[in-house]
């Protein structure tokens, strides 16, 4: 527990926007006083009064990672009673310099769990904006805090948040020439970490299904590299296809019903799509070159992919049935791994020049290109559900050690995401990517 809390603090710090002492004019200031408890009782997760403070702190930490919101508190804010949580005394909060107020309470239950309730009020219009309530194990209060913060963000920005999201990745241990690769999954803040495979075979490219319940990935099980699907609890591991040549690079369709992937035979790699439960794959590309890394648009109508049909790897977009293929990247060097943002506005990619590889974004028609990172080898971008952050893999020159990083699409330094071991190939839940 102590390990997780310290790690999540570290992670939260890593994800924080560039520290600004004051809210920017476009931001909504939200006051987050500590959550009261009707009766302070001891639970497995600590006293409910303490949990109330910790939840408020976690909500502030979460909200600080968004661009639209500037949170304040819980230090320095006045307290209130649990009965006030559902009916705030607006005049008391009028002059604290906030546009909105978070209230709520933590209550011990007879079954040993706790009830966490939270509200968001608009202090100017004096109305409720959002509310959420959960009965959770007392040790899982942080989950409740994430979901409270998520419901506030949804109410304000109309977008999903990443606070309750998960990240699947490949834990990379062993030496460089004798690597050990394990599928791993954790909450975005590093808590609730688990391994889904134990390293006996090499695995790559985990992709969470849109509902977060399954992971498509590539495995060398049986000696022939192929796409498999596994439940996030580690059960029901199966091959996506009955019997094929080598298949790799899986991506889910936004409705979770299909998986696009690449299949290679006789030196030719093409993109196919198949029902997520198996069946006969449908071929989408026929060019003699290497067509790979498909990624659906959020409405499912288009697929971005990479192809070397022009000589070097470049980004292309086609309709989901394979028609209307056109090139969208023309910058220097080669471009790979296109990933469509959950809001549909941008395509993230990695740009390879001779000297380095970095993460960039461009609009789906190829305009507005912007390079976000400045590493030696930054690749494999994956969008946060709110389309504001990208997770990616950064490899260090010389040692070749890989790690997970995040970068804000709006700009700023890349920050390391803590994982128990070196990590590669991050995939953020909450969107088909």
């Amino acid at each position, binding site marked *: 527990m102590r390990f997780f809390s310290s790690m999540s603090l570290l992670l939260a710090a890593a994800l924080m926007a560039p520290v600004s002492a004051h809210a920017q004019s476009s931001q909504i200031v939200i006051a987050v006083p500590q959550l009261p408890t009707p009766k302070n009782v001891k639970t497995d997760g600590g006293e409910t009064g303490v949990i109330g403070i910790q939840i408020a702190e976690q909500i502030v930490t979460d909200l600080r990672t968004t661009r639209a919101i500037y949170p304040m508190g819980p230090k320095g804010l006045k307290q209130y009673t649990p009965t006030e949580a559902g009916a705030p005394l607006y005049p008391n909060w009028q002059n604290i310099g906030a546009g909105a107020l978070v209230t709520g309470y933590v209550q011990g239950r007879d079954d040993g769990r706790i009830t966490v309730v939270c509200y968001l009020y608009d202090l100017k219009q004096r109305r409720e904006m959002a509310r959420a309530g959960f009965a959770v194990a007392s040790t899982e209060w942080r989950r409740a805090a994430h979901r409270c913060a998520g419901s506030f963000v949804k109410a304000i920005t109309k977008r999903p948040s990443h606070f309750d999201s998960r990240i699947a990745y490949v834990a990379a241990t062993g*030496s*460089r*020439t004798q*690597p050990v*690769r394990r599928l791993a999954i954790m909450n975005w803040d590093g808590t609730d970490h688990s391994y889904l495979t134990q390293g006996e075979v*090499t695995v*790559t*490219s985990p992709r969470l299904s849109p509902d977060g319940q399954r992971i498509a990935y*590539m495995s060398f099980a049986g*000696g*022939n*590299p192929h796409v498999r699907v596994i439940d996030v609890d580690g059960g029901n591991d199966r091959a996506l296809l009955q019997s094929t040549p*080598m298949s*790799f*690079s899986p991506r889910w369709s936004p409705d979770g019903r299909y998986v696009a992937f*690449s299949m*290679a*035979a*006789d*030196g*030719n*790699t093409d993109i196919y799509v198949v029902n997520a439960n198996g069946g006969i794959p449908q071929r989408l590309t026929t060019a003699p070159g*290497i067509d*790979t*890394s498909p990624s659906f648009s959020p409405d499912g109508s288009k697929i971005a992919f*990479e192809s*070397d049909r022009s000589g*070097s*790897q470049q980004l292309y977009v086609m309709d989901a049935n394979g028609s209307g293929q056109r090139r969208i990247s023309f910058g220097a060097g*080669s471009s*790979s*791994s296109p990933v469509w943002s959950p809001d549909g506005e941008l395509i993230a990619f*990695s740009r*390879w020049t001779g000297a380095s*590889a970095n993460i960039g974004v461009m609009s789906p028609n190829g305009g507005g290109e912007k390079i976000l990172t400045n590493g*030696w*080898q930054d*690749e*494999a971008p994956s969008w946060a559900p709110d389309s504001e952050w990208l997770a990616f893999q950064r*490899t*260090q*020159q*010389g*040692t*070749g050690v890989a790690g997970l990083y995040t970068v804000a699409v709006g700009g700023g330094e890349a920050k390391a995401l803590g994982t128990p071991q070196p990590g590669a*190939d991050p995939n953020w839940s909450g969107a088909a990517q």
Partner: protein
Amino acid sequence: MIARALIVLAGFVGAAASAQTYYPPPPSQYPPQPGQYPGMQGPVLAIPVLEADLRQKTGTDTVRFGRDSYVLTSQAQATLTAQAQWLIQRPFVQASIEGHADGRQSRDYAFALGERRAAAVRNYLIASGVPPEQLLTVSWGRERPTTAAAHDATWLQNSRVVLVLKQPQQNYFPQPQPFPAPPPPQPYR
């Protein structure tokens, strides 16, 4: 009664006949005799000994490629010609053609490029007379570099295809099978 007994007898004869064909006659040159080749130890092959023999007779088990290239250089072709002869002379060996790419391209592209290189080698070996059923192909992409450093003077050595020898498929050497038990006699009615 007699007719039924004859039918049962015929059944036994039939079982004996099918048992006769249970052992497929080995092709004229198989199975190779123990000691005929280095690494031959009856039906089980000592793969490391065979691989050492391959490296000794053909110079190397590896062919290398230029960056992003799958073109076989003249040096690679000479190596593959020798490897093809080695394989043709040892039809009991199965070879896995393992394609690799260096780590300075996307993971997906590296898988595709490794497969493309392995396919180029496979096509060359088949054109040189190696039976296709003796060959497998695998792409490791960039997952198995040979160089310890991520990027130095030797990193292009990861762009390669390695011939890895395998035990032949299980039914390659006919194994004596236990005689199938005759069906239990049917009770007369």
